[in-house]
């Protein structure tokens, strides 16, 4: 392939999954940020424009008319038309479908309504910390980072908590689907659907769809005060939600509701263990919990990139983009942009004006669960600080080899008095 870049320059490879088993390739991104214009990144039999600067990510993110989420796919590779339709969710939609779907669930996630879950989050967090303290050491991901967000989102959705472990298991298999390594066969969970028609190409998506449909059936008969009941109500009210839309929305809420925050809490714990002086600041001054939460989010960058597709010929950072070109926003890079953040390589719990893009760079696709994630992280930090709990890392984190989700599979931690 020839490069359509006016400078004839190609980006260094930042899509190799194995890179991310070590860490984000920060030096490569820094090199790309300092190169004028946009770099063309070969990928598969084509490629994409790599958007790495904070200001450029913002421009793409906010201009949903020019940069479509509904064309091709929001991941690096294109989906065939039937697969895209079968898998289409809030993430892969443009207005007006996106607006309609988003509004169905938006009210449950406004700052005002998220505050209603404050006590639930506190209770779940206290219980998990009690267990971790009692054990004094263990896998932080399995014991705290994974169960905290999944228990919260399942409570909101109306999923019985005894099913939490099953849904965490499904979610773990979905994360595998973002990398090249899938450990389960296509027919797992009784799946008969072609994998390309399932989100993350994973048979676990079939199981999650099936679970969501069963729960919807229960709630149709016996509505409760939960999100699934509200969605099936909308479905019956005005045909606002098709069966496929419900399945994919349920899938998204379960997956995004736990996987991303779990990643943030995992990287946050590692950062606090590796920077004990920063954690001391929070323990000494709980007023820093809010800024520490934002810094954990910036530092973690749970979702590494999202793709858009140019709807029309356009220009970004002086580079001409042709209609149909893939345009990929690298949050992993924007969150370390020297032009935006002072000393971006430093983990600083007191950082001010921390306009990180861990919830996206603005625009209509801004993370639905942003205020829920913030609440969960802030409550965890607050309770750890109140108890004077510090963390010590007992080994290297086992990272997911994925260029999309910056997952931590496990990390052994021990309690350390502060």
């Amino acid at each position: 392939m020839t490069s359509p870049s006016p400078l004839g320059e190609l980006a260094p490879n930042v899509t190799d999954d194995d890179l991310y088993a070590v860490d984000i390739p920060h030096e490569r991104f820094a090199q790309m940020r300092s190169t004028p214009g946009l770099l063309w990144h070969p990928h598969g039999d084509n490629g994409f424009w790599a958007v790495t600067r904070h200001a450029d990510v913002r421009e793409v993110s906010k201009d949903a008319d020019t940069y479509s989420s509904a064309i091709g796919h929001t991941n690096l590779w294109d989906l065939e038309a039937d697969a895209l339709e079968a898998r289409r969710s809030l993430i892969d939609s443009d207005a007006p479908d996106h607006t309609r779907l988003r509004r169905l669930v938006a009210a449950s996630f406004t700052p005002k309504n998220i505050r209603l879950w404050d006590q639930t989050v506190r209770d779940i967090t206290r219980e998990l910390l009690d267990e971790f303290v009692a054990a004094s050491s263990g896998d932080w991901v399995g014991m705290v980072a994974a169960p905290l967000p999944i228990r919260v989102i399942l409570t909101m959705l109306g999923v019985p908590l005894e099913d939490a472990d099953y849904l965490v298991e499904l979610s773990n298999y979905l994360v595998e689907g973002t990398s090249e390594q899938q450990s389960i066969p296509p027919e797992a969970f009784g799946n008969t659907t072609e994998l390309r028609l399932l989100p993350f190409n994973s048979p676990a998506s079939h199981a999650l769809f099936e679970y969501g449909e069963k729960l919807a059936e229960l709630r149709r008969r016996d509505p409760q005060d939960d999100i699934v009941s509200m969605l099936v109500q909308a479905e019956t009210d005005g045909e606002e939600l098709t069966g496929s839309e419900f399945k994919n929305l349920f899938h998204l809420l379960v997956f995004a509701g736990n996987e991303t925050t779990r990643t943030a809490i995992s990287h946050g714990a590692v950062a606090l263990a590796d920077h004990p002086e920063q954690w001391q600041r929070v323990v000494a001054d709980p007023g820093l919990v809010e800024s520490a939460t934002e810094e954990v989010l910036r530092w973690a960058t749970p979702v590494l990139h999202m793709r858009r597709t140019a709807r029309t010929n356009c220009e970004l950072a002086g580079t001409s983009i042709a209609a149909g070109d893939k345009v990929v926003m690298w949050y992993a890079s924007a969150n370390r942009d020297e032009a935006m953040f002072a000393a971006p390589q430093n983990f600083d719990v007191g950082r001010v004006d921390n306009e990180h893009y861990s919830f996206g760079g603005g625009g209509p696709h801004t993370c639905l669960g942003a205020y829920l994630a913030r609440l969960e992280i802030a409550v965890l930090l607050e309770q750890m600080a109140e108890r004077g709990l510090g963390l010590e890392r007992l080994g290297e984190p086992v990272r997911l080899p994925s260029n999309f989700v910056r997952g931590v599979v496990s990390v052994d931690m021990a309690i350390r008095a502060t």
Partner: protein
Amino acid sequence: MTSPAADGAPTPRDTDVSEDDLVTVSIDAEKCIGSGTCEMFEEATFVIPDDGVVAEIVGAGELPRDRAVSIIDRCPSGAISFVAPG
């Protein structure tokens, strides 16, 4: 489609902002995705009614210019804009 400043709208740097410098904003109900961001930062000016999902203006929709610029920027859907004077 770009930041408010690029649209020629005033930015805080254009003038010395005083509390008296009130501007009027409006909401495009077609664009609003109901994130509730405006309500959180400017509860005296915006509300999402309990029986709705789209933000609405409270009263005259007036607020100090610098805070208007800020909330226009924060709104994820780009649904808030200045009402042109006159």
